């Protein structure tokens, strides 16, 4: 397939044909987002149903998917709103739950050096666990083709908002996504992405260490900080192994 991702190729090509290059990049982004759509529509649906049943207005339910766009934090917030928790606690909880994105953003930052500030800001807005996972396994595409990456992100959020909207509409009916196994879609996607990350013994060791530590911390009652703590410890462990085996 023809790829026109660097600005130079882009400009050269656009002079001859103003449409194909950019529309092809947009299309590639949409296509790569397919596994995310499979996960986001049903889970967004479940969120919409839950929010509707918890007495959050249809408009607010959709606004949250538009301006927060963070799956687990939105579910937690709905529960907190329903139990009458105050704004400060809801915001603080959201901050803690989503702090892991700090590490994800840091890990992708080197590949965004050629991007404009405006595009970086747009990209960060839709950086979720799932979009991060896809981009981190295709860092060359990320670096060379902002349009494709942004298209992937926008498609992901669109499917999340669509799922939320369907959930709001259906919240008066029965909203059970379990019989189709749809609630497993994102876990299955993470399995596929994790396997594609395990390209060396050091990376396998990093994943095993981090996963087991996160499980132990979760069992010990760290229900918010276990991911970020295990990630820092796991990457540090992997780095130590890497340095030690090198020298």
């Amino acid at each position, binding site marked *: 397939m023809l790829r026109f991702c660097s600005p130079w190729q882009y400009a050269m090509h656009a002079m001859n044909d103003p449409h194909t290059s950019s529309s092809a990049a947009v299309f590639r982004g949409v296509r790569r987002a397919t*596994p995310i759509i*499979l996960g986001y529509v049903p889970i967004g649906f479940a969120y919409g149903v839950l929010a509707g049943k918890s007495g959050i*207005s249809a408009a*607010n339910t959709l*606004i*949250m998917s538009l*301006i927060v*766009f963070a799956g687990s934090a939105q579910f937690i*917030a709905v529960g907190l709103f329903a139990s*009458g928790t105050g704004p400060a606690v*809801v*915001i603080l909880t*959201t*901050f803690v739950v*989503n702090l892991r994105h*700090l590490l*994800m*953003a*840091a*890990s*992708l*930052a*080197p590949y*965004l*050096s050629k991007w404009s500030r405006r595009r*970086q*800001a747009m990209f*960060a*807005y839709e*950086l979720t666990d799932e979009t*991060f996972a896809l981009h*981190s396994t295709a860092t060359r595409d990320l670096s060379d083709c902002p349009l494709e990456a942004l298209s992937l992100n926008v498609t992901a959020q669109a499917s999340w908002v669509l799922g939320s909207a369907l959930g709001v509409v259906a919240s008066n009916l029965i909203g059970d996504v*379990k*019989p*189709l*196994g*749809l*609630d497993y*879609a994102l*876990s*299955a996607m*993470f*399995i*596929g992405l*994790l396997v*594609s*990350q395990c390209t060396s013994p050091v*990376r*396998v060791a990093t*994943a*095993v260490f*981090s*996963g087991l530590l*996160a499980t132990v911390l979760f*069992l010990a009652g760290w229900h918010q900080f276990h991911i970020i703590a295990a990630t820092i410890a*796991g*990457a*540090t462990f*992997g*780095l130590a192994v890497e340095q030690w085996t090198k020298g």
Partner: protein
Amino acid sequence: MDQGLILLTMVGMGAVTYLPRLLPILFLSGRTLKPLIVAWLRLVPPAVLSAMLLPSLLVPEERIDLSFDNIFFWAALVAFPVAWKSRSLFATVLVGMGLVALARYCGLGL
């Protein structure tokens, strides 16, 4: 809770979610980082994916459950080799979802 107050709270939620996603990109991109930091950042993806995934497979509720009721764990035992062999995200997702649906149809799981 008042819908107006919910809206204001959500604006706050949006801000505290966006900043951790944005600031590292603004501050770290375009800089030459020390090789050791770059090597560390490269290990973040496998670490964070595994840290999110493994507890959700092993601990469905408050404790480790490896019985047949925990169909997420058993489906993962199939999905991992499928991912390894096929190298296809789509195939992995379909097999995983299919197994969970099948198990529930047979009366297993929650």
